[in-house]
């Protein structure tokens, strides 16, 4: 069975043994990098959180390119369009929820907790 390279379908690009192997090796490398950065305390605090999040996103891209062949999709790239729309919904959903719940916590806390929070946020020392 031979697929025409002109038809816009995900299987138009199946990938090759080389592309799957590159994807697999990169995934393993990034997974181990993130793991040892945390377990062996190679980085600390905000830098560590940022590095792990970045490694997660890089792995997402590796998988999309080498396993799901999103980059080699032929035009019109509907798969990519739906994927990007999903990302917009995802960002609104996750960050919107965190924002709303943070505000709720803040506004529904007891007066004492609010005092503590304000003192902490403004860096006031008692």
């Amino acid at each position: 069975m031979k697929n025409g390279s002109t038809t816009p379908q995900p299987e138009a690009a199946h990938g090759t043994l080389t592309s799957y192997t590159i994807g697999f090796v990169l995934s393993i490398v990034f997974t181990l990098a993130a793991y040892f950065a945390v377990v062996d305390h190679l980085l600390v605090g905000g830098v560590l959180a940022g590095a792990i999040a970045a490694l997660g996103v890089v792995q997402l891209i590796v998988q999309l390119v080498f396993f799901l062949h999103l980059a080699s999709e032929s035009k019109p790239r509907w798969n990519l369009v739906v994927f990007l729309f999903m990302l917009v919904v995802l960002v609104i959903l996750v960050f919107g929820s965190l924002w709303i719940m943070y505000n709720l916590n803040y506004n529904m806390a007891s007066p004492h907790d609010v005092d503590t929070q304000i003192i902490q946020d403004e860096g006031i020392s008692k």
Partner: protein
Amino acid sequence: MTHHDDSKTLFGFWVYLMTDCILFATLFATYAVLHNSTFGGPGAKELFSMPFVLTETLILLTSSFTAGLAMLAAHRLNKNQVLFWFGVTFLLGVAFLTMELTEFSKLAHEGNSWQRSGFLSAFFTLVGTHGLHITTGLLWMGTLMTQVTRQGLVPPVVRRLTMLSLFWHFLDIIWIFIFTIVYLMGAM
């Protein structure tokens, strides 16, 4: 079945996967909101064994790779290799699921079930939903391997295998985020 219909079917399946991503996004959002609500109980740092989780991750990553190898064989119409690589993928999937259920039962036996705190409710819902998807994927894989054996690699079967491999890679991506957000960030 023409190629044109195939591409529509695969596009439809892709749209389903994207909506499934949104389902997981809501569960990730819930987890992000509740991850500090431990109600005096243990948090992520005390509960999870990192080498155990790394092993789970490597098993699932490898299974995603072997699913890719199975698809390469499917496009070469090599029936025996398809069955071999999906067989390997299936066994790795079973190993992953067994490890996940072992972790769940260990947590529940220690009194840290989903009833313990908001954090644990969110954890079990998120990771459990992923496990449920893996279970469905394994049932689907078993069914398709039977079809490959009986019908051979006819175009409808190859199309279904393509969708299954998309599903399996997708579950691997979701797990990468569970590994990063729940386990790695929890252990910091």
